């Protein structure tokens, strides 16, 4: 065997040995970053907030509707919808239908007010209660209709309402409200219990309804 060939083989063997020695080192060096990446993806998955809607009808057919929407998806898709009153994730309010009620001023007043019951109406047909409790606006309506009874409970974090009214005077910023909602904990937003169906709208970190 010539010296040239022997030299080439020696160099090749040395290169191979060095590579083999370096591979575990590289793998070890990459391991923490892989762990970090895995941890990040887990955190990211944990941070996903889901809006769930469930409608269960108690009639003979037993109609059920389940909707699961990631809040991030809704936040990104809403600005793409430009139809009728909805533009860039904001919906225009028709002032003519508000009977000269300045919603923004009302929201400001509620924000600065202390916790308590603001409206309590007890009638033959309906009971209505509007309250502020633990930075949540709570609306409770009990319809005592003779044919069908229904109970509606709405619980919205104040920061979501603030975000909703953060746009111009005559518009509601839905995207900002969704963004604010994504920062809140697990919460039930709407609950309707009627004789013939129940509706639930809630927010949590699970990607499936119960």
């Amino acid at each position, binding site marked *: 065997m010539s010296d040239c060939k022997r030299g080439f083989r020696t160099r090749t063997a040395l290169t191979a040995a060095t590579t083999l020695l370096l591979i575990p080192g590289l793998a070890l060096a990459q391991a923490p970053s892989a762990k970090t990446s895995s941890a990040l993806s887990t955190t990211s998955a944990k941070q996903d907030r889901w809006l769930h809607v469930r409608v269960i009808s108690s009639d003979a057919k037993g*109609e*059920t509707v389940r*909707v*699961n*929407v990631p809040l991030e998806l809704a936040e990104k*898709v809403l600005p793409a919808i430009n139809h009728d009153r909805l533009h860039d994730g904001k919906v225009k309010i028709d002032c003519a239908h508000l009977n000269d009620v300045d919603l923004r001023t009302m929201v400001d007043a509620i924000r600065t007010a202390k916790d308590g019951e603001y409206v309590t109406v007890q009638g033959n047909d309906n009971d209505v209660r509007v309250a502020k409790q633990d930075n949540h606006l709570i609306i409770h309506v009990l319809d005592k209709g003779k044919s069908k009874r229904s109970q509606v409970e709405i619980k919205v974090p104040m920061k979501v309402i603030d975000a909703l009214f953060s746009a111009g005077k005559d518009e509601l910023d839905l995207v900002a409200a969704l963004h604010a909602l994504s920062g809140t904990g697990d919460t039930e937003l709407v609950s309707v219990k009627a004789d013939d169906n129940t509706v639930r709208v809630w927010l949590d970190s699970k990607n499936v*309804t119960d």
Partner: protein
Amino acid sequence: MMLLAKAALGLTGTLFVAGAYTFHEGVIRIDVDEHRAGGSHVHMWVPAAAVPMAMHFVPQKHLREAAERSREALPIAHAIVKELKKYPDLDLVEVVDGEQHVQIRTRHGKLQIAVETPDQQVHLLLPLSTLDDFTRQLEANAPGA
């Protein structure tokens, strides 16, 4: 003999590469079953990779018309598909009404739409990447794009 062997090898290689590409891109699956006398049963498997290629053969005039008609919906569809790609396994909507069942979900990066009624079953499976390509190409053909 050698020439034939080379040609066979070339053909096999091409088929293998084409198959691998098709498999990578996924397939569009359409199943329609009508459960009644004389009802039709359609089962279609289309390589998803064929859609962007096929769109190149659609006359520009028709593409422009389609883009014009769906002008309002295209940005919404594009935004939805783009976001859905982040959720490869998502149960989006499920409606059960007696014997009727509608389900919209994503599985393994594919959009699944299933409609089941006592007399008909429709199942649609579409890779989200194909839908993304499709909406992109239509948007590119929209007037003023």
